[in-house]
């Protein structure tokens, strides 16, 4: 299976800032590594799904929703991308790993 080359951290951060400003109308100058996604950047759980969906181009995989929910800041999102790339390269299967509490996403009725 083809390995995803590990990108520089700045490149991942740049892509995340790009997604946040292009898709969510957030002023790029206000996006700091320590910015909290839901409070400071005023994102919603539905927005988060779209962010993770867009990041699949970088990570090559569908994330575990339970793990994705734990991501609170821009910096943690960068870490998450690297962790996902590592999983892809290690051949870890996509999607939820443990028995899901509610199955998949927690925002869908």
């Amino acid at each position, binding site marked *: 299976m083809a390995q995803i080359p590990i990108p520089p951290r700045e490149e991942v951060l740049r892509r995340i800032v790009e997604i946040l400003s292009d898709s*969510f*109308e957030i002023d790029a100058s206000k996006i700091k590594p320590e910015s909290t996604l839901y409070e400071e950047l*005023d994102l*919603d759980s*539905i*927005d988060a*799904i*779209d962010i993770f*969906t867009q990041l699949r181009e970088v990570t090559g995989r569908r994330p575990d929703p339970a793990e994705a929910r734990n991501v609170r800041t821009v910096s943690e999102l960068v870490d998450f991308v690297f962790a996902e790339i590592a999983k892809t390269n290690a051949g870890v299967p996509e999607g939820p790993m443990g028995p899901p509490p509610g199955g998949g996403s927690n925002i869908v009725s």
Partner: protein
Amino acid sequence: MRRVVITGYGVLSPIGHDADQCAASLRAMRGGIHPMPEWDHIADLQTRIGGKVTGIDLVAHFPRRRRRTQGTVGLYAMYATDQAIAQAGLTEATLQSGRTGVAYGSTTGSSHELEAFCGPLFVNKTMRGLDSSSYLKFMTHTCAANLAATYGIRGRVLPVISACTSGSQSIGAAFEAIQFGKQDVMLAGGAEEMHYATAVTFDLLMATSIRYNAEPSRSPRPFDARRDGLVIGEGAGTVVLEAYEHAKARGATILGEIVSYGTNCDGLHITAPSEAGMRGAMELALEAGKVRPSDVDYVNMHGTGTEIGDICESNATASLFQRPVPASTQKSYTGHTLGACGAMELVFSMVMMRDGFLAANRNLDEIDPRCGKLGYVRETTPAKPRLVMTNNFAFGGVNTSILLRKIED
């Protein structure tokens, strides 16, 4: 059963962005039908004019937080509802009490969002580029659901989706919810977003106006001998309905009363109207309101500007009233705003009662002799209508009739 009053209303339409602007347009007989160059790329489409909402940027108006899961139709609904809530002076506590609900309709969810989602998915068979929020914008109950989420509504949410009676049936459902004591306050109305798919739909049915593309302001022409079909429009109308006692207790200004609501079905044909069915709905409203036809000061007609619709409706109305009751339709100003029209026209009726005039039928130069004998309003007429009937009809043979009374508080 409890009395139900109106304590707020709001409107966004091709002839104005609020009730006052619409009143000014109606008084001046100023229509809102324009060319639709946005449709130039649609081959074979014959109708090229529409009643578009112009001169307002709702993306700039609403912060992203309020737009997050809303397409254009949802934004229209929210814009009109903000006005209605502000006029009614509803507090957050009332909105979120569980005794306030929402009844709101549109013919469908956001068509532009549906296109953005189904285009890539249906044509290219890919999920790439799709947003998780798209469905929330194009689902059929997008207006009701998003209004509820926006204002923190904890009461009932009733999305009434019945094409051109979506707005009037939403108001009817809200009226009954309060009448029977299930809710104290209801936000009710309808919205519509213009999209070429709607124009195509009515074009295919040969129901659209196609001869006035070079002179948009001359169409539609409801009840006129030279009418050639409907013109698609868009916008939203919202009313705040409230139990009379509830409104009095909180010191709200009472703007009008919904006297009664009649709705039925022809039980005959999916698209062809029925004179008996239309008249039946009007009779239901009169009976429920204990009102005689002679008590009604003005009939706000559906008046789509299609041949069969105009003839059928006008004859149904004439046979019931048996006199030249003053009558007109505001579709000659806005075009057919479909899911919004029932609510929008009810708001226009409120404005006429408030300001003391009857809006004229635009483009009614020569009454089609096959239309029923009514007092078609030909120019803006000073009047003090106190009891108004507003009627709407939809595919499926759905008919609605609402009686409105002016209240001097």
